[in-house]
């Protein structure tokens, strides 16, 4: 068992400078960098929340912060980053995420219905022996997406199941997958996920299975310890990889990291913790505001989600309404809608004020990025700050707090000599609306980003398919097969054109053109002695389409066609 024990011991893989060759570290080029020394000059350096140096310089060498201050001498062989008017912060740490972790392939495991009650542990989502480390992929899009935002490290966990495996601390960059690893087997990741059609399928199954496994592991590890101490006369313990993987949470050497989004998930995690007594942290919490006293009572640190419901600007809408119908009495349904909207706004507000409340109630928290889309991260963060979280606390929740919760304070979280050179440089204060991240340093490696260009104005509802061109079609009707040519001119949303009909040799103007995704529909009037209206609907897939031709009183008939290539 000694071998196993060593596996469970938390292994710190601080990257030893010099052992790793500096080849291909730069993102955009295969050329190796000319130097591994950087000097960020003349910047506003936010060393730690509330601690700022104006016009300071940071010296980086071999991935380590060598010096920070206002009077640092820049060596001649350093690459100087002129950071006039820029702001430097410690790189952000995601408290819980799947950044850099591959999704397991969907296995179409032979559906043996007889085993729904007794699936394998793997099928049941019980793989505590897995580690995120084994699933890392440095070129996963998430690594780049979050690095762009200023994240340099993450507590990354495996996907899927109630016990998907252990979490790994990674940095968001590296030469290969394993380069990312900072610290392995830091937490036992857990979630209330049913196994989908087999036991445990529902949350009640998951809760019961969690208790059962924990107590089994507790019993087994107890016996194992006795056996290790004096095996003479004792039955050999039955090996069980699943239970053995849980020993460190039973012995409280490893913390359980529970994903708990909703209020009820939070309370359920607390119930399990209370029943079983493991060490716990809560992650990706979305609805925790009513659970603050309960969370406080457990002492568990929290990572709050930044995946928030869309913020709605209430006031503006009202103003508009007032202008339009100042005199009209609101109808009952308008009053109802208004009341409901107000409740909805109030509810949405809860999500945005939550971090501020956690802060003022003294609950230790950071942010997690499991669900938030990277494009929404900054918008949501700034809204959270607007709703009562101070900038310092926000910065702490992105740097010092996760570092402290995850036991990384000696490595990261602040800009101090000797720590890993994980930095984010923005062109103005990060917590202002127009800030752009310009540089991110991950373990001393520099990533450059362009300042965002002003958004182009989008054409109205312009997402439709580009169908302009000449389309040949055929159609089958009970009267026989027809054919002809559809000519579409203009841009999506603004098409005009003609359709020719082999039936009577006519060419007709089309009208009422509508574009919806890849569907284009229009109608035209066909003179058959009496004028009839024909509706056409085309589902366009590249250069071909399938669709229908409908005549009100006669029915719908299939049609298909293709685009003439020379257009």
């Amino acid at each position, binding site marked *: 068992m000694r071998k196993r024990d060593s596996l469970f011991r938390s292994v710190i893989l601080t990257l030893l400078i010099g052992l790793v060759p500096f080849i291909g570290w730069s993102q955009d080029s295969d050329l190796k960098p000319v130097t591994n020394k950087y000097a960020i000059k003349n910047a506003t350096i936010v060393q730690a929340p509330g601690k700022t140096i104006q016009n300071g310089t940071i010296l980086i060498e071999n991935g380590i912060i060598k010096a920070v201050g206002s009077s640092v001498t820049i060596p001649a062989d350093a690459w100087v980053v002129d950071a006039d008017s820029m702001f430097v912060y410690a790189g952000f740490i995601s408290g819980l995420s799947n950044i850099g972790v591959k999704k397991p392939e969907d296995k179409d495991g032979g559906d043996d219905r007889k085993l729904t009650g007794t699936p394998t542990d793997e099928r049941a989502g019980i793989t505590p022996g897995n580690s995120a480390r084994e699933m890392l992929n440095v070129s996963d899009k998430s690594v780049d997406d979050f690095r762009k935002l200023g994240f340099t490290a993450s507590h990354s966990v495996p996907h899927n199941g109630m016990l998907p495996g252990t979490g790994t601390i990674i940095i968001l960059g590296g030469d290969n997958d394993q380069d990312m690893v900072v610290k392995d087997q830091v937490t036992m990741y857990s979630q209330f996920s049913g196994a989908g059609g087999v036991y445990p399928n529902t949350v009640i199954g998951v809760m019961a299975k969690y208790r059962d496994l924990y107590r089994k592991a507790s019993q087994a590890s107890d016996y194992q310890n006795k056996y290790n101490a004096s095996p003479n006369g004792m039955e050999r313990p039955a090996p069980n990889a699943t239970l053995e993987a849980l020993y460190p949470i039973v012995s409280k050497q490893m913390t359980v990291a529970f994903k708990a989004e909703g209020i009820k998930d939070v309370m359920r995690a607390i119930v399990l913790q209370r029943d079983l007594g493991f060490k716990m942290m809560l992650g990706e919490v979305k609805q925790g505001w009513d659970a603050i006293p309960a969370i406080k009572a457990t002492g568990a640190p929290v990572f709050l989600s930044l995946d928030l419901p869309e913020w709605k600007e209430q006031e503006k809408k009202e103003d508009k309404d007032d202008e339009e119908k100042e005199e009209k009495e609101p109808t009952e349904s308008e009053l109802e809608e208004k009341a*409901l909207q107000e409740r909805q706004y109030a509810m949405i507000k809860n999500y945005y004020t939550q971090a501020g409340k956690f802060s003022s109630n003294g609950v230790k928290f950071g942010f997690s990025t499991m669900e938030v889309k990277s494009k929404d991260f900054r918008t949501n963060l700034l809204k959270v700050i607007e709703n009562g979280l101070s900038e310092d606390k926000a910065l702490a929740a992105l740097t010092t707090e996760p570092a402290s919760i995850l036991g990384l304070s000696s490595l990261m979280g602040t800009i101090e000599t000797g720590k890993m050179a994980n930095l984010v440089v923005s062109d103005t204060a990060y917590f202002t609306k127009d800030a752009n991240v310009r540089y991110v340093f991950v373990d001393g490696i520099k990533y450059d980003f362009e300042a965002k260009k002003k958004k182009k104005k989008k054409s109205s509802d312009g997402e439709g398919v580009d169908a302009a061109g000449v389309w040949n079609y055929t159609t089958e009707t009970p009267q026989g097969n027809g054919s002809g040519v559809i000519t579409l001119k203009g841009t999506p949303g603004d098409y005009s054109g003609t359709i020719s009909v082999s039936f009577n040799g006519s060419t007709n103007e089309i009208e009422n053109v509508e574009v919806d995704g890849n569907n284009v529909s229009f109608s035209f009037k066909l003179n058959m002695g009496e004028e009839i209206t024909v509706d056409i609907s085309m589902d366009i897939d590249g250069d071909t389409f399938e669709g229908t031709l409908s005549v*009100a009183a006669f029915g719908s008939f299939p049609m298909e066609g293709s685009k003439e290539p020379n257009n």
Partner: protein
Amino acid sequence: MIKNIKNILTLVLALTTGLAFGQIPSAETGTFALTNAKIETVTNGTIQNGIVIISDGKIAEVGSNVTIPQGAKTIDCSGMTIYPGMIDGGTQVGLVEVSSDPRTRDNNEIGDVIPHIQALTAVNPSSVIHPVTRVNGVTTVLTMPSGGLFPGTAALINLHGYTPDQMYAGFKGVVLNFPTTGRRGRWDRRSDDDIKKAAEKALKQLNDVWAKATQYHKIDSATNGKDQPYYPEMKALLPVVRGEMKLLVNVNSANDIKEALKWIEKNGADAVLCGVSEGWRAAEDIAKAGVPVITGPVLSNPTRGYDRYDRPYANAGAMQKAGVKVAIRTNEVENARNLPYHAGFAATYGMGKEEALKAVTIVPAEIFGVSDMYGSIEKGKVANLFVTSGDPFETKTQIKYVFIDGWNIPMISRHTQLYEEYLNRAPGVEK
């Protein structure tokens, strides 16, 4: 153990041969005089100490000064009240027997547009549910097919008779499930967009069908119906398009109700709104359109999580107060017998006893165009009535007699039979 198995076997035998078990005796017909009764005529007020004469299936006389014909069977109704038989304006009675067993479900045929499919043809006259329902005073029900856009033609039936034709009560209407923009339930996880698109598509389909039917009607009129090819769907819609037959429009959510009213007006259909669970949200519109409503079930949950808890109870009253002609239905099968309780809850929550009573008697009769035959105690009407110990909505009230088509219905059902057999079971615990 052997004894056990024997018991079980006996039971299984009883169950498998059970469809014949406990036959209910035949009803009795002839001339009846119900005397010394309080009569709630519904249309002509209350008659104290009155007499109702039933003869040839009809109400021959009503009043306090009525001569009892010779040979009439006299039933002393002292302390009792006579009410017209209750009409449930929407059920699947007769089409469904055991709802979880597909072999006993005949309410839902394949096809989206099948207005020619006839509920009446599949009404099972021997359904165990008929006696259970009628002994509670529900003498007449509308039985409706369900399913797609036009799931078929509903029929009004009396709950006594040995063939569907004997049961038929003189009204048929084509059912339309109006395209819904709402979610169908908690499990309906479609996106708002998908729901909207599906509704638009269904509405387009409805308009197409209607346009075809209109065209069919034009041709049919022009050719006097000669040489029209076999087209049963259009043939079934023909009287509806011509306004000679009612269109029974199932619709529930407020937006759909408004859409349906617009559609009805545009197409000039002679329509009835059925279901209408959010009618209170659109009561003014319905009243203005002058379209009658058959609403229910009254005993149901609010349609939206944020609606006041008593909206379903108060819905019928709210519409009626806004000027809508409102009848009440259960939308039930085996529990259609609870119609008086649905009406009772509506009465309690705003409709009042009098209007609630009308909503299960004369109003549905008027909506179905059969008020010359049903819905009140009046001379010349069909003798559908019941005699009670008191207020028919009050839960503990006992119903003493039920007449359907002039037949004196035995007050026996599977439920009463099992009660008789098992109240004091013999043998008891010891054999």
